[in-house]
């Protein structure tokens, strides 16, 4: 997690929007990250991510005071926030980060907010306290039962949908599978559901089509038409396949990066100290 000074972005950002971070001008992948929070006074935005590929790993190795090459944003359409009644916010893993400002926005708009937070285990659960501050009720689930209930997020979600006061809206952000099953659950009970998609992105301005998804049988661009869509219309299977698109190559880039790190170690500690890795 980092706070980055980006005054223009901070001034314009609204819940649901994201930025694209670029580590170097010539050779770097552009990383889309949702804005998890902002401080308009300091002019900074908060970003949270998981190191999965080389670029996110590099990002994770930055130290306080380091700079990133550039940040583009805020991108995407902001979340539609109004008083719906009861809103269930479902976050999985790193998805809690972008979900937080939405939950806060919903609460401030006068909704009753129930948050369901899921993680693989206790260590990987993030932002619990922040959610407690903006929710009427927080339900924690973990895959291994190391904290909260041992369940998938869909279990409490289904209970709530089935319950006496059916929610007016669900917002689900997390891994593709999680969003897919959340939507399958809410569909059964006719609860409108918003999901936020984080596909591969390049320009973030609608120029490349790399971020395309199928929504209601039509091709949509996540960066200009989204990132939020009606979850009941999203073709998650196609999306997840596309997300795997570059995995092989990401892996290769990661390996190159690791090797590079090893070489650096060989050169000696001094070199390592001076290197940004």
């Amino acid at each position, binding site marked *: 997690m980092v706070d980055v000074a980006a005054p*223009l*972005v901070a001034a*314009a950002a609204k819940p649901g*929007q994201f930025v694209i971070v*670029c580590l170097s*001008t*010539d*050779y*770097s*992948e*552009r990383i889309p990250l949702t804005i998890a929070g902002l401080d308009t006074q300091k002019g900074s935005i908060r970003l949270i991510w998981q190191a999965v590929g*080389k*670029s996110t790993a590099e990002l994770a190795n930055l130290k306080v005071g380091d700079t990133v*090459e*550039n*940040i*583009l*944003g*805020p*991108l995407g359409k902001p979340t539609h926030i109004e008083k719906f009644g009861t809103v269930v916010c479902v976050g999985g893993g790193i998805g809690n980060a972008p979900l937080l400002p939405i939950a806060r926005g919903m609460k401030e708009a006068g909704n009753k907010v129930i948050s369901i937070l899921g993680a693989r285990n206790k260590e990987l659960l993030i932002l619990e306290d922040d959610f407690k501050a903006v929710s009427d009720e927080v339900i924690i689930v973990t895959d291994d039962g190391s904290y909260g209930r041992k369940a998938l997020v869909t279990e409490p979600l289904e209970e709530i949908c089935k319950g006496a006061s059916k929610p007016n809206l669900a917002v689900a952000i997390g891994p593709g599978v999680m969003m897919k099953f959340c939507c399958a659950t809410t569909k059964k009970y006719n609860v409108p559901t918003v999901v936020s998609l984080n596909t591969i992105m*390049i*320009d*973030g*301005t*609608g*120029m*490349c*089509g*790399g971020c*395309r*998804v*199928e929504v209601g049988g039509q*091709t949509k*661009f996540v960066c*200009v038409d989204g990132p939020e869509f009606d979850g009941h219309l999203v*073709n998650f299977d*196609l999306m997840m*396949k*596309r997300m*795997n*698109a*570059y995995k*092989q*190559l*990401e892996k*290769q*880039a990661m390996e*190159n990066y690791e090797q590079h790190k090893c070489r650096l170690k060989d050169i000696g500690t001094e070199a390592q100290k001076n290197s940004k890795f």
Partner: protein
Amino acid sequence: MDESTKHLNELLAKHKAGILKPADRYEIPPQAMPAQDAIARRSNVSEVATGYTETQARLEALRCLGCKNAPCVAGCPVKIRIKDFIAPIVEGDFKKALDIIRENSLLPAVCGRVCPQEVQCQLPCTVGKKFKDVDKSVSIGRLERFVADWGRKNHDKTNPKIAPSTGKKVAVIGSGPGGIVVATDVRRAGHDVTVFEAFHKTGGVMVYGIPEFRLPKAIVREEIEQLKNMGVKIVCNFVVGRTRTIKELIEEDGFDAVYVGVGAGLPQFMGIEGEHLVGVYSANEYLTRANLMRAYDFGKGADTPIAMSKRVAVVGGGNVAMDSARTAVRLGAEKVYLIYRRSEKEMPARVEEVHHAKEEGIEFHLLRNPKRIIGDSGGVVCAIECLKYELGEPDASGRRRPVPIQGSEFQIEVDTVIIAIGNSANPLIGQTTNGLELNKWGNIVVDEKCKTSLDGVYAGGDIVLGAATVILAMGQGRTAAAAINEYLTGK
């Protein structure tokens, strides 16, 4: 002294004596563009066409008849005084030639390389008409490029004069050719100019679309440097409509006028089965990954995970399709197929690019069009199924309409499909700017001065014209800049 120099000297002597007849000029062979070897260039990204030598340029210039009615000028979107710049080339006065071009065109090194001359200035050329072959017209574009490159080599940069500061602020949105021209012309008039660019690099399609081997990025960089030297401010990673809206730029940030040159955007897909498969790219994505993020250096430092494609199908027949196909070759593809639904005659690509593409071993499948893209169990492309077509009656564009032949399906095994069938207008500016009039395709509507429906807001280039050309974007930039300068004088 070699043959051609001897030939040139003989012709020059006759020319000086005033006895060089049109018949003599017709006899001069059209000068071929020197190019890198077709096999060697498959594995590098250096420029393919290497440019005329001085002797070649002067011989080619001697082919120009200097027609009184100058039919070529009518074919030039910015009305460069063509015969007037060609005459000094004969004399070897390249500086004078360059100054004449610069009166009307700010980016001659770019236009000389990428303009579709065969359908513009070179189409009505009397010499070409005489031979009933546009390929035998005077190579105006190659001469323009020669002169521009001469200027670059000899550091002939006349820093344009800038009028005293007016205190007026102008925002230019997008750093493509249109934006560069507006920034230059408006800055010259003494206004304070800021260019906002969404990408982390400036130059628009000239940097992320058109590949290095056709337009070296150093040329575009020099143009941007020139802007900076003139005191134009350049802000990258700034998406107008998101970071700030046009309304905010005008009402809160104090800009007095705005030029919108955001380009075409939104790539079109065909809407056929399989377009979401892994390994299907829009040409924009493919070229951006290759150019801007230097995928051709993958493993050496470039992180962009562009697929290591071996068998590639490119769909389309324009410059964008040629650029994609030729980029795939350079990224190491063994087989590249170009699939186009009409015949070669209807291809909108520049003739030289089609020629170069064939030389590089790209296989043309004309009168064919994809029906669906087939994937394996992991959702990765493994083949493309096409239909054969024949040409029917002319359609609205005047070109003969391709008609599918029933039952003619066939498959080609591929691991990558690149769709290069055009773009539609990017909706971002329209969505975020109240009162901005758009046409039914989402392009911004402007009047003959490139003014939009909003006061102080002007637009040009691909966002107005749909996918057009560098020179048309430049032309509109000129018009808009003149109108902005006029508007600000009255303000």
